[in-house]
C-alpha cells in the first residue's frame, strides 16, 4: 500500500509540475512575448505597465478558464466512462452540449444578449444544458432504476435532435447571427467576465472533491452494476449522483467556453493506459492532464498563425486525435 501511495504521489506531482510549467509558458508566449524570467518581477512591481495588463487581463483569465474547463471535461469523461463501462462515452455523448448550444442559439437569434447583456449567453447555455439533463434523466428512469443503456441512447438521440434544430435555426437566421452561432459552437476560452471565470474554476474544483467521495464506488462499478451491488455499493444512488455531477460539470464548461471536443474522450483514455484504472488516482490525474492539455492547445491556437486566432476545438481535435491514434497503434 505504501508503495502504491508513493507511486500515486509521483504521478500527481509530475502532472502538477507539467501543469504549472505549461501555465508559465502560456503566460510568456503570445503576440507580445514576455520572457519567462521577467514574469515574476512584473507580477511583483509591474502594476500599471502594458505587460502587466496583458498578463493579468488577457492571458491569465484564459489559463484559469482552460484549467477549469479542461479539468471539468476530463473529469466528467472519466466518471461517465467508468459508470457506463464504455470507453467511447464522453461528456458530449449525453446530449448536454447540444442542449447548451441550442440555448445559446435561441439567445442569439432573439438578440437577448443585446438587450439583456452579453452575460446572458452562458446563462442560456446553462439553462439549455440543465433542460437536456432533466429530459435524459427522466426518460431513462424506470421504477426508480436508472437504466444505463437507455441513458446512452436517449442522450445520443437528443444530441441529434438538438443539432438538427440548430441547423434549422441557422437556415432561417441572418448572416451576422450565423457568424455568432458558429463562433460559439467552435468553442473558445476567451471570456472577459472575471466572475464567470472564478465560478467555473470553483465548480470544477468542487467537482473534483465530490468525485473523490465516489472513487471506491467507481472502482466497484468497473466490475458491473450487479457485482458492485454484491460488494455493498448502493448502485442506484451512486449512478444518479455521478450522472448529475458529470452533467453539471459538462453543462458549466459548455456554457462558458462553448463546445470544445475531444478533451473529455482522449485524456481519460490516455490516463487509463498510463496511470492505471484505479479511480483513486485516475480522477486527479485526468483532471490535471485535461487542464494542461487544454491550456497548451489554447496557447497553440492563439499563437500558431498569430494574429489570427484559431478555434481551440480545432487544435484539441487534431492534436488529441493524432496522439490517440499513435498511442493505440503503439499499444497494439
Amino acid at each position, binding site marked *: 500500500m505504501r508503495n502504491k501511495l508513493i507511486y500515486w504521489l509521483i504521478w500527481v506531482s509530475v502532472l502538477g509540475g507539467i501543469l504549472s510549467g505549461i501555465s508559465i509558458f502560456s503566460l510568456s508566449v503570445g503576440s507580445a512575448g514576455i520572457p519567462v524570467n521577467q514574469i515574476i518581477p512584473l507580477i511583483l512591481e509591474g502594476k500599471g505597465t502594458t505587460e502587466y495588463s496583458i498578463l493579468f487581463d488577457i492571458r491569465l483569465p484564459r489559463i484559469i478558464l482552460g484549467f477549469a474547463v479542461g479539468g471539468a471535461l476530463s473529469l466528467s469523461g472519466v466518471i461517465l466512462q467508468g459508470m457506463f463501462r464504455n470507453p467511447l462515452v464522453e461528456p458530449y455523448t449525453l446530449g448536454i452540449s447540444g442542449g447548451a448550444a441550442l440555448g445559446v442559439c435561441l439567445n442569439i437569434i432573439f438578440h437577448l444578449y443585446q438587450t439583456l447583456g452579453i452575460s446572458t449567453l452562458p446563462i442560456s447555455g446553462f439553462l439549455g444544458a440543465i433542460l437536456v439533463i432533466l429530459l435524459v434523466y427522466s426518460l431513462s428512469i424506470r421504477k426508480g432504476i436508472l437504466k444505463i443503456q437507455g441513458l446512452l441512447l436517449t442522450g445520443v438521440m437528443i444530441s441529434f435532435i438538438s443539432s438538427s434544430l440548430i441547423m434549422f435555426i441557422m437556415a432561417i437566421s441572418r448572416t451576422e447571427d450565423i457568424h455568432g452561432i458558429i463562433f460559439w459552437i467552435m468553442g473558445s476560452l476567451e471570456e472577459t467576465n472575471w466572475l464567470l471565470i472564478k465560478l467555473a474554476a470553483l465548480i470544477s474544483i468542487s467537482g473534483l472533491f465530490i468525485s473523490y467521495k465516489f472513487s471506491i464506488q467507481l472502482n466497484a462499478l468497473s*466490475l458491473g452494476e450487479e457485482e458492485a*451491488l454484491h460488494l455493498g455499493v*448502493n448502485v442506484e444512488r451512486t449512478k444518479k449522483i455521478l450522472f448529475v455531477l458529470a452533467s453539471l460539470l459538462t453543462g458549466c464548461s459548455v456554457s462558458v467556453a462553448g463546445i470544445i471536443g475531444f478533451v473529455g474522450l482522449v485524456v481519460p483514455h490516455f490516463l487509463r493506459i498510463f496511470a492505471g484504472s484505479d479511480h483513486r488516482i485516475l480522477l486527479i490525474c485526468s483532471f490535471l492532464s485535461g487542464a494542461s492539455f487544454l491550456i497548451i492547445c489554447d496557447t497553440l491556437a492563439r499563437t500558431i498563425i498569430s494574429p489570427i486566432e484559431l478555434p481551440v476545438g480545432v487544435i484539441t481535435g487534431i492534436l488529441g486525435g493524432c496522439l490517440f491514434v499513435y498511442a493505440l497503434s503503439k499499444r497494439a
Partner: protein
Amino acid sequence: MLELINLTCGYNSKFLLKDINIKVEKGELIGIIGPNGSGKTTLLRAITRVIKPEKGKILFEKKNIEKFNFKELAKKIAVVSQISTANVMTVEEFVLLGRIPHRRRLQFLETKLDEEIAHRAMDLTGTYNLKERFFGDLSAGEKQLVVIARSLAQEPELLLLDEPTSHLDIAHQVKILDLIKRLNKNGLTVIIVLHELNLASQYCNRLILLNNGTLHKCGSPSEVLTYQIIEEVYKTIVVVRENPISSKPYVFLVSEEERQKKGEMC
C-alpha cells in the same frame, strides 16, 4: 440462517419464481439444480437483492434482508457470479475490491488488515502467485479462483455461487468444489447453483431441484436424484447408479441411438 418464505418474484411483473419456501441452516452446503430457465439464478439474485420479491420475504438471521443496508449485507453474504468481467486490474487489486464493504467512512487506502485478509484469501485459493498478473490475462479456471478469493476477502458468513464450474475442465471443477467443501467444513454456509448433476450429487449435503420456477423436490442427493424425478423434470431418459466410492447417486446419459438399439433388443 437464511429463510425464504412464500417467495414470488420475477422480471417486469412476469413471475419466474412462485411460492418458494426454503430454510437454510448454518454450516450447510446446498446445491440448487434444475433445467435452464427454471429460476436458479433468479433465486440467487433475489437473495442478493438484485431483484425485489413481489410477494413473500427473505429473512437473513431472522431479519428481513430489505432492512439491511447494502454494505451490511455485503459483509455477511458474498457472491461469485457467472460472468466475471475482464479488465486491466492486477489480481491483488481485484481481490482487494472484496474489502469494500468493510471500509470505513473517508478511508482512502486499504489498511494493513485489509491486505492481510486479501493475502489469506489468495493463499486459501492458491492464487497468491498470480497476484501481480492482470486479471484479464488469466485462464478461465484461474479467474474463477480469483473471484472466489475476492468473495472470501469479504469475510462472509454465507457464500453464494452461480455455476462456478461451467466452462472448466474436470481438474478445475474438482479443485474449485474441493475448495468450497473445505471452506464449508470450516464453518462457511454455502449455496451453490450447479448444472452438472453429478458434481451436485458428489459435493452437496442437500439439493434443491427447481422446475418452472417452483420448488420440485428438496432433500439429500439420493432422495432427489432418482431416475423418475430427473426424467420428469428434464424430460430426458437417464440411468441412475451408485458411485462405487462415495455411494452417492450418479446419473448416466443415454444417446438416442443406444436407446433405439436397446429397444430393438428387448
